[in-house]
């Protein structure tokens, strides 16, 4: 299965990925994606608000969907909330499979779905000023490629 969690605390991508292969000899491919806070345009912090109960439900649903679509052997998704500084990691998706194709596709699918379906909202802080991040049409387009006919 793919474990999902939200937390305020930092996570260790290397340890998360290592746990997916520990003690097993059937995993041939591990893909990790880690999203980080960029200091674009003088950004000084990123504040993530979320809807906890719905986030848990959506992340579990997205994880189950990936599990059904690809032959996966394990996975972990952690999304942070709260106030993050430039350089800090926001989200990690780590996927294990026998082969690389499934691991890459599932990780991309999960990121695209997290961007468009998980109830998080980012607020940028630029010193004393602050603004909510607008949703990107490009994220909707990226997610739409996974829709089944």
């Amino acid at each position: 299965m793919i474990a999902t969690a939200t937390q305020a605390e930092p996570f260790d991508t290397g340890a998360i990925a290592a746990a997916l292969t520990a003690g097993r000899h059937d995993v041939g491919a591990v893909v990790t994606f880690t999203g980080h806070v960029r200091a674009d345009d003088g950004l000084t912090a990123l504040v993530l608000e979320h809807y906890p109960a719905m986030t848990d439900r959506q992340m579990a649903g997205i994880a189950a969907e990936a599990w059904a679509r690809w032959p996966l052997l394990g996975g972990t998704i952690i999304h942070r909330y709260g106030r993050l500084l430039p350089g800090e990691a926001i989200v990690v998706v780590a996927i294990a499979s026998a082969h690389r194709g499934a691991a890459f596709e599932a990780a991309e699918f999960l990121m695209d779905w997290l961007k468009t379906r998980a109830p998080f909202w980012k607020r940028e802080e630029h010193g004393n000023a602050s603004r909510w991040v607008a949703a990107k049409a490009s994220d909707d387009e990226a997610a739409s490629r996974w829709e089944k006919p």
Partner: protein
Amino acid sequence: MVDLLYFAWVRERIGSGAERLALPDGLASVADLLDWLATLSPGHAAALADRGAIRVAIDEAFVAADAPIGTPREIAIFPPVTGG
């Protein structure tokens, strides 16, 4: 009574993250609900003015504007999500 939850700038404009309301009879759809909510205060009106930027979840599942309200426990109203 239904729990209304507001997030991000919807929350800021309404001035509260949650309120418990008795919905009036006759709200057939999510769009009807938003129309009614917008009458409650200038903050509600400002928050819901741009319907294209409003997303709604009933009992933690996304719903479309023409979806029926039903008898939910919790309705959440928020901008398009920007996680990941």
